[in-house]
Every structure is written in structure tokens, then in C-alpha cells.
């Protein structure tokens, strides 16, 4: 028996007056399980435990959560990566978003900021008969941008987003914003930039790179934000 001590954030607004931490003992049988496997074992011990999950392989982005203080996807985070020296695992919901129940958060404000950057191709020229073509070089510029799965690990690790979630777009939204600014087929660059030059939308980023540290897909929102600043500078000086 190799027991893992797990402490999980619990909150059911219908029955609990305040959130609390519940302790569980999980038998890992010495295996290096993923955190999601541990949650599944806990769910068998206490079926009232609520969390989101779907693909269990780091593609859907449903099970973003805070594991021993660091955001990540439970399904692709092995115990050996997060469990501390005392052999303890602490699971909390993504920070800064309203808790719906236990590890489930309300992602409304996160999606609202994503919607704000108009995450779709805009082109005012007449559409060609088949499709808008792009050179391999131009296509390459989208690498490291399009892979985002919107798990919200980055934005909820960002203090600028915690303090001003309704004004600062956040790393996830800005990465996608740059994905369309960098797209050779998009012609709305000027309008997109005009919406971003205020002191909050982009410039509340202080470059602390928490987003880069936690991104489960290894993306770099800080670099994208720097590129947006360069575009704004090039347009305005």
C-alpha cells in the first residue's frame, strides 16, 4: 500500500456556507498516476465530488485546475511532477474565477475576453472560388499560436487578469488576438489594433510570464503580447 494524501477544495453553494478543504487517502499502488486518475479514485470514495473532464489526454482543456499551487491539466500532469516532499497533493479550482462547485469554475469572463478579440478570420476582399491560399512561410507564422485549447490555465495564473478580468484581455485571449493579427489572410489588422491600444487590454501585462510557465501546450503568450506591442508601435510612431 502506498497511500497518497490528497487535500481537495470543496464547495457546494447549495449546502455549504463556506468552502473547505477535504482530506482523502488514495492508494496509488506505487504507480505514477496522472492527477485525473487520482480524482477518479476520489470520486469513487465520495461521489459528490465535482470536476470537469472529457478527453483525458490534454486535448479538450476541460480539467484545468490548481495542483500544489500551479495551474495545469490534471489529465497530463503526473504525480511525480507535482507532489511535494511531504508526499501531499493539494487540489484547488483555477484561481480568480467564481466557483460553481468544488473544482468547477465559471469561465464566463474568460470566454467574454476571448469573444472580444473577434477570434475568427476577417477579410473584406471577395472570397475566391475555392479557398484563400496562404504560402507555407505565412502559415508557419501561426505555429505556436493556433494550438491553444482555451483551458484557461494561463489567464487564471495571471495577477493582471485576477485584478482586472473585465478590462485586461488576458494571455489566452491575447495569444489568439495575435494569431489573427499574424494571419496573412486577415485584413482587419487596423481595427483589431485600434481595440487594443488602451492602458488595460494589452498593456496591463507586466511580463511576469506566469502564463508561459503553466501552459500545458508549451505556448508562449508573453511573446505574442510583445509582438502585439511591436505592431502597435509600428502603426503609431
Amino acid at each position, binding site marked *: 500500500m502506498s497511500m497518497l494524501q490528497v487535500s481537495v477544495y470543496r464547495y457546494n453553494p447549495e449546502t455549504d456556507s463556506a468552502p473547505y478543504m477535504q482530506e482523502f487517502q488514495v492508494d496509488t499502488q506505487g504507480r505514477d498516476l496522472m492527477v485525473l486518475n487520482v480524482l477518479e479514485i476520489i470520486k469513487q470514495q465520495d461521489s459528490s465530488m465535482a470536476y470537469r473532464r472529457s478527453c483525458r489526454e490534454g486535448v479538450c482543456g476541460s480539467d484545468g485546475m490548481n495542483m500544489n499551487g500551479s495551474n495545469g491539466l490534471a489529465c497530463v500532469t503526473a504525480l511525480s511532477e507535482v507532489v511535494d516532499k511531504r508526499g501531499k497533493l493539494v487540489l484547488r479550482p483555477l484561481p480568480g474565477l467564481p466557483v460553481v462547485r468544488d473544482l468547477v469554475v465559471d469561465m464566463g469572463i474568460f470566454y467574454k475576453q476571448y469573444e472580444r478579440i473577434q477570434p475568427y478570420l476577417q477579410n473584406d476582399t471577395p472570397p475566391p472560388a475555392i479557398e484563400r491560399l496562404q504560402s507555407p512561410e505565412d502559415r508557419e507564422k501561426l505555429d505556436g499560436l493556433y494550438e491553444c485549447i482555451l483551458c484557461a490555465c494561463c489567464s487564471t495564473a495571471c495577477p493582471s487578469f485576477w485584478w*482586472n478580468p473585465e478590462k485586461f484581455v488576458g494571455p489566452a485571449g491575447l495569444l489568439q488576438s495575435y494569431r489573427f493579427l499574424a494571419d496573412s489572410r486577415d485584413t482587419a489588422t487596423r481595427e483589431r489594433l*485600434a481595440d487594443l491600444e488602451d492602458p*488595460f487590454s494589452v498593456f496591463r501585462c507586466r511580463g511576469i510570464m506566469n502564463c508561459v510557465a503553466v501552459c500545458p501546450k508549451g505556448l508562449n503568450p508573453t511573446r505574442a503580447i510583445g509582438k502585439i506591442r511591436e505592431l502597435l508601435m509600428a502603426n503609431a510612431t
Partner: protein
Amino acid sequence: MVTNITNFGRSGLSDWLIQRVSAIILALYTIFMVGYLLFHPALDYPTWNGLFAQTWMRIFSLLAFLSLAAHAWIGLWTVITDYIKPTGIRFAVQIVVMLAIFVFLVWGVQVLWGA
């Protein structure tokens, strides 16, 4: 677009640029001051007074004061809008900070040209 009327340059881009340019000016001024003090270990009042009597030093100092004023306002405005959520208190603190920066700036000019 998020509307703002109390930040320094009305635009996040100009605030960002001014913050960086003023930081460079302040760094140069600091390096100069530290260097000057190191090269004048037995500094007396007439030498110090003579330094600030020169026009280039007054221009350099005034530039540094203006940079400090802009830098302080942009930085503190950011801190204030991060942490103080009630509008009344936030605006009051902004006015106090703005007033303090103005007083220090005028005082600095007076010191520069008063000697």
C-alpha cells in the same frame, strides 16, 4: 477598447513608451550621479554648486525630474487601478498622488534655479 481618462497619455501605448524612455533617462541620470560622487570623494559645496550652475546639468536634471514625474504617475496609476476598486477612493488617491508629484516637480525646479 477600455475607456480611461486618468492615465498619463490617454493611451496605453504612449504610457508604455513614456515609461520605457523615462526609465532610460532616469538610469542615465543615476549612473551619472553615482559616477560623479565616486570621482569626487572630497566633495564640497562650491564644487556641487558649480555642477548645478552649468546649463547642461540643469537641462539634464530637469529632464530627469520630468521623467521621474511621468514615470511615477504611470507606475502609481497602474498600482492604484489594480488594487483600489471603489471609484471614490481610487479617484481621491489619484488626486493626492498627482498633487504630490506636481508639488515635488515645482519644488525641484525651484531648487535647480534657486541656488
